[in-house]
C-alpha cells in the first residue's frame, strides 16, 4: 500500500450504554470487563484507536452485537462517544457546534444503511435529490447532479419509481446514489448488502469496487461477512465485544491472526483468495519462464491458473519489470488445497 495522508482518525474512543456511563471512565480510567459488568453497563465500543488513509477501504467486521454499528455511529457522530477523539481532516468531530456538524455532514460525509432507509414518499429522483434539496442547491445544478448519480448507479429510466416498486438491490442503489449526490469525502456503509440475497450481493460488491475505482472515496465499510471483507478491504479491523482486536490487510490477518477469535474468522476462507505471491515465492534462480504478469502483491488465486497450466516455475516481477522471485506450482498447490500452514 502506498503512503497516503490520514483522512480519519479515532483515538481512544469509548461508548458505554447504561446509567452512569458518563461518569464511569472518570471513576475507572482503565476499566476491566469486570468493572463494566459490575456497574451494569454495556460496552458498545472499548478504547478504539485507528487511522484511515485517504482513498482507503477500511472494513470493520465482527459478529452480531460486537459493536460495529456503534463504532460507525460514533464516527459519524450520530451518537456521542462516551470519551475519546474523532478527527476528520484534523477537525475534532466532538468539538464542533451543531451548525458546523450539519455543514460537515452536508459536504463531507455520506452514509448507506443496511435496510436502505429510503424516504417512502419520494420517488427515486426525490430521494437522490433530497440531500441537495435540504442544502438549497440551485434547481439546475440539483437536477443535473441527481440525474448523473442515478445514471452512475444504473437506475436510469426508473427516476419516477417509488421505493416500494424497486427490488432490494435497486433500493440500495438508490441509497448509494443519494449518499454520493453531495460528493462526500468520507463514505460510511453499515452492512449495506446484508439484506440482499447472495447473487445480488456479489453484483453490488462489484458495483462498489467499480464506483470506488472512479471516485476514490475514503470508505468505512461494515460487514459481518469475512468473504465480503476480503473482497473489498484494503485493511480490516476485527471487533469483538466492543474491542478492536486486530487491524491489518486480509493477508496479515490470515497469516498472523492475533488470537483464536480472529483465526476462527479466517479459517473458513480459501487462503488462495487472500495470500499474495510474495508470501510463498522463493528466490529467483534465473531459469524462470517470463510472459505472465505475476507481481509479489498478486493474490495467489488470480495467478494459479496460469502457473498450474504451464506447469513451470514462473518469474515474479516488480513494477519496474525486475525479477524479484520464483513461483512454482509446488508453491501454490498447498495453498490451494488449504494445507500450506500444516506444511510450513
Amino acid at each position, binding site marked *: 500500500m502506498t503512503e497516503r495522508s490520514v483522512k480519519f482518525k479515532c483515538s481512544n474512543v469509548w461508548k458505554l450504554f447504561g446509567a452512569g456511563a458518563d461518569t464511569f471512565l472518570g471513576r475507572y480510567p482503565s476499566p476491566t470487563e469486570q468493572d463494566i459488568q459490575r456497574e451494569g453497563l454495556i460496552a458498545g465500543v472499548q478504547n478504539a484507536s485507528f487511522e484511515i488513509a485517504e482513498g482507503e477501504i477500511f472494513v470493520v467486521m465482527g459478529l452480531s452485537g460486537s459493536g460495529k454499528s456503534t463504532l460507525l455511529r460514533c464516527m459519524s457522530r450520530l451518537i456521542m462517544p462516551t470519551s475519546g477523539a474523532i478527527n476528520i481532516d484534523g477537525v475534532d468531530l466532538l468539538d464542533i457546534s451543531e451548525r458546523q456538524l450539519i455543514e460537515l455532514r452536508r459536504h463531507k460525509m455520506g452514509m448507506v444503511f443496511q435496510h436502505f432507509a429510503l424516504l417512502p414518499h419520494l420517488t427515486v429522483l426525490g430521494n437522490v435529490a433530497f440531500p441537495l434539496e435540504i442544502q438549497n442547491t440551485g434547481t439546475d445544478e440539483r437536477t443535473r447532479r441527481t440525474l448523473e448519480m442515478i445514471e452512475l448507479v444504473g437506475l436510469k429510466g426508473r427516476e419516477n419509481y417509488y421505493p*416500494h416498486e424497486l427490488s432490494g438491490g435497486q433500493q440500495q442503489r438508490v441509497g448509494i446514489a443519494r449518499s454520493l449526490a453531495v460528493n462526500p469525502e468520507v463514505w460510511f456503509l453499515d452492512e449495506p448488502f446484508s439484506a440482499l440475497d447472495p447473487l445480488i450481493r456479489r453484483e453490488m460488491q462489484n458495483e462498489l469496487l467499480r464506483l470506488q475505482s472512479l471516485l476514490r472515496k475514503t470508505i468505512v465499510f461494515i460487514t459481518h461477512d469475512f468473504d465480503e471483507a476480503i473482497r473489498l478491504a484494503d485493511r480490516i479491523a476485527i471487533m469483538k465485544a466492543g474491542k478492536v482486536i486486530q487491524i491489518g490487510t486480509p493477508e496479515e490477518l490470515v497469516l498472523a491472526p492475533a488470537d483464536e477469535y480472529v483465526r476462527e474468522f479466517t479459517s473458513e476462507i480459501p487462503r488462495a483468495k487472500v495470500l499474495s505471491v510474495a508470501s510463498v515465492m522463493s528466490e529467483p534462480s534465473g531459469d524462470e519462464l517470463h510472459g505472465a504478469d505475476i507481481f509479489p502483491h498478486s493474490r495467489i488465486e488470480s495467478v494459479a491458473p496460469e502457473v498450474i497450466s504451464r506447469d513451470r516455475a514462473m518469474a515474479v516481477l516488480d513494477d519496474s519489470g525486475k525479477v524479484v522471485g520464483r513461483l512454482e506450482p509446488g508453491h501454490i498447490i498447498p495453498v490451494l488445497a488449504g494445507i500450506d500452514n500444516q506444511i510450513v
Partner: protein
Amino acid sequence: MSEAVADVPQMSRTCFFRSGIFIWSVFVALAILITVYQDLWPWAMKYPRGWVIPLKGWISDFMSWLINDLDFGVFTFKEMTRSVSWVLSWPLTFVNNLLVEGFAFSTDPGAEAVLPPLPWIAVVGLFVLAGIAIKDWGLGLLVGACILYLAIFGRWESAMVTLSAIFIAVPLGIGAGLGIGILAFKFAGVKRLIIPVLDLMQTVPVFAYLVPILFLFGFGPVAAMIATMIYATPPMVRIAILSLEQVPDDRVEYGEMAGCTPKQLLWKVQIPSARSGLMIGVNQVIMLSLNMVIIASMIGAGGLGFDVLSSLKRLAIGSGLEAGIAITLLAITLDRLSQAYSKRPPPAHLEHDTYRARRQKMIYLAATMVVVTWVASFFIPAIRTYPESWQLTTAGFWGDLVKWINVNYFDQLEAFKTVLLVNVLIPTKRFLLATPWIVVVAFVGLLGYRLGGVRLSLLAIALALFIVVTGGWKKAMITVYLCGISVLIAALIGIPIGIWSARNERVHRVVQVCVDTLQTLPSFVYLIPVVMLFRVGDFAAMIAVVVYAVAPAIRYTDHGIRQIPIHLVEASTALGCTRWQILKRVQLPIALPEIMLGINQTIMMALSMLVITALVGTRDLGQEVYIALTKADTGRGIVAGVSVAFIAIISDRLITAWVKRKRAMLGES
C-alpha cells in the same frame, strides 16, 4: 405441545388462587362483619354529610371569580375568552354563510342574502367528485347518495350547519393535535405532562366540560365548536406522538447524516414518514368531531343534533329517527371519505404523470360545476334550494311502525324488560347500594395490590376515596351497577360473536361490516330506537349502552383468536384435539389477555355512553352531570364528571395490570 400451552395458564391460576384464597376469605369475612354490625359504625355505611368536602362549591366559586373578577389590567379574563370566541366566529360564520345562509354583506341580521349559499346540487356534486378523486366511482356514488338523502328528506339546512362546524373544528383539531403531539415528541418533559392530561380528558364525560365552556365562551355555535375541538384533539395528540415515535430509526439517522437541521428533519423526514399513522388520527378527529357536534347541540350547536335532541324531548320518534339517519349517513360519508384517503395505496411511478393531469381535471370540473350551478341558482330556485314539493318524509311511517310494534309486541317487550329488571338489575343495584363504601374502597385497594402492587393499590384507593369524600358515592354506585351489568351483557353477546367470527370467514366479513358501522354512529343515535321500544329508565339506558359498547368486545375477541400462531392450532389438531377442545384449551386461554383488553374498551365506551343516557332518565353520575349542565352549575358537573373518569381509570388500570400479569405468564413481553 397443546398440553403444555394449555397448562401454563391453568397451573398459574391455581397458584394464584392458592395464595390468594386466604387473603380473600379474610376480606369477605371482614366485609360481612362490617355490614352486619353496621350500627356500630354508621359512618362506614353511609359517608356522613358533614364530612363531605365542598369541592363543587370551590370549583363553582373559582369559576365565577374567573369570569367576574379576574382582571389582567388591560383586559379581563372574560374579555379574553370572549375575544377568542369572536376570532373563531369568523371562519365559522364564513363557512356557515357559504353552505347555509348566503352572504348578506350587512350587519343587519334580518337582511336578505345578496349572494346565495352554495346550491345543494353543487354540494352533492362536490362530494361525488371527492369520492371519485379519492377512490373510485363506487365511493363517489355512495357518498353522493348519502348527501342526497339529506336534501330529499328535508334535513339539508341542519346538516349543512353541522357540516360547517365540522369543517372548521376538524382542521383546528388536527392542527392543535399535531402541534401538541410534536412538542410532546420532541420534549420528554412535555410528554410526561401531557399523557396524564390526555388520560383524564379522554375519560371525563363530554357533558362535564360543556358547563365551563358555556361559562367561558357563551352559548352558541362557537362554544359548541370549542367543545368539539377539546373533545376531538386528544386522540390526535396520542396518535401523533405514537406515529412520530414509530418512524424507523435508520430513516431518522439518514436525515441527520444528510445534514438536515432539526426543523428539516421534522418536516421532511419524520412527518412524511409518519403519514399513514397521522391519517388514522385525522379520521379519528373527524369522527369524534361529528359525535361531539351532535352532543354540543346542548350548548347551541344547532344542526342535526338539535333536531334529534328536540325530537327526543317531544318523544317525536319519527322525526328523531329521520334526523338520526341523517347523522348516520353524514357519519358514513365522512368516515368512508377519510378512510379511503388514509388508505390510499402508495403512489406508483406509472401514475406519476397521469396523476397530476387527473387532479387538474378534477379541480377544473369542480370549479366549473360550482360556478355554473351557482350562477344558475340566481335564476332557477330549484337549484338554489331543494324544492319542498320534492321532499319526502318517513316520519309518519316510523311513528306508525313504533305504534304497531307497541300494540302488537308490547306484552313481550314488557315481559322481557320486567324479567331482567326484577331478576338482575334491581337485585344488583340493591346489593351495591347496601355494600358499605369502606368495603368497596378496600376491595379495589386489595385488588390493586394483588394485581399490580402497592402503587396501583394506593392509586385505586385514592381515586375511589375522591368519589367518597366529594359526596357522590351513591350515584357512583348506580353508575357502577349500570355499567357493570351492561358490560356483562355486552361481553356475553360480544365474545361468542367474536369467537364465531374468528372461526368462520363469511361470518367474519358480515361482523366486520356491522362492527364498523356500529363504531361510526354518533352515540346520540343509539338513544332513538331504544326510546322507541323501551321508553325511558334504567332498562332503556342499559340497552343503549350494550348496543353502543359491544363492538370492541367482538373485535378484540376476533382479533385475539386470529392472531394465535397457526402452528399452535395445527399442532393441537395433529395431537387429535377436537375443534371444541382447541378452542377451550388452546385458543381461549391464549387469547384471554386480548379479550380482556376488549372488555376494557367496552367498559370505557359504556361509561361514556352512560352519561349520555342520562337524557333518558337514569339516576347516576351521568344524571348529575346532566343536571349540572341544565343548571349551569360548573362545580357539580366537573366533580361528577371527574368521578366518572376516576371509575374509568380505576377499572382501566386494574384490567391492564391483570393483562400484563397474564401476558408475562404466557411468556409474551
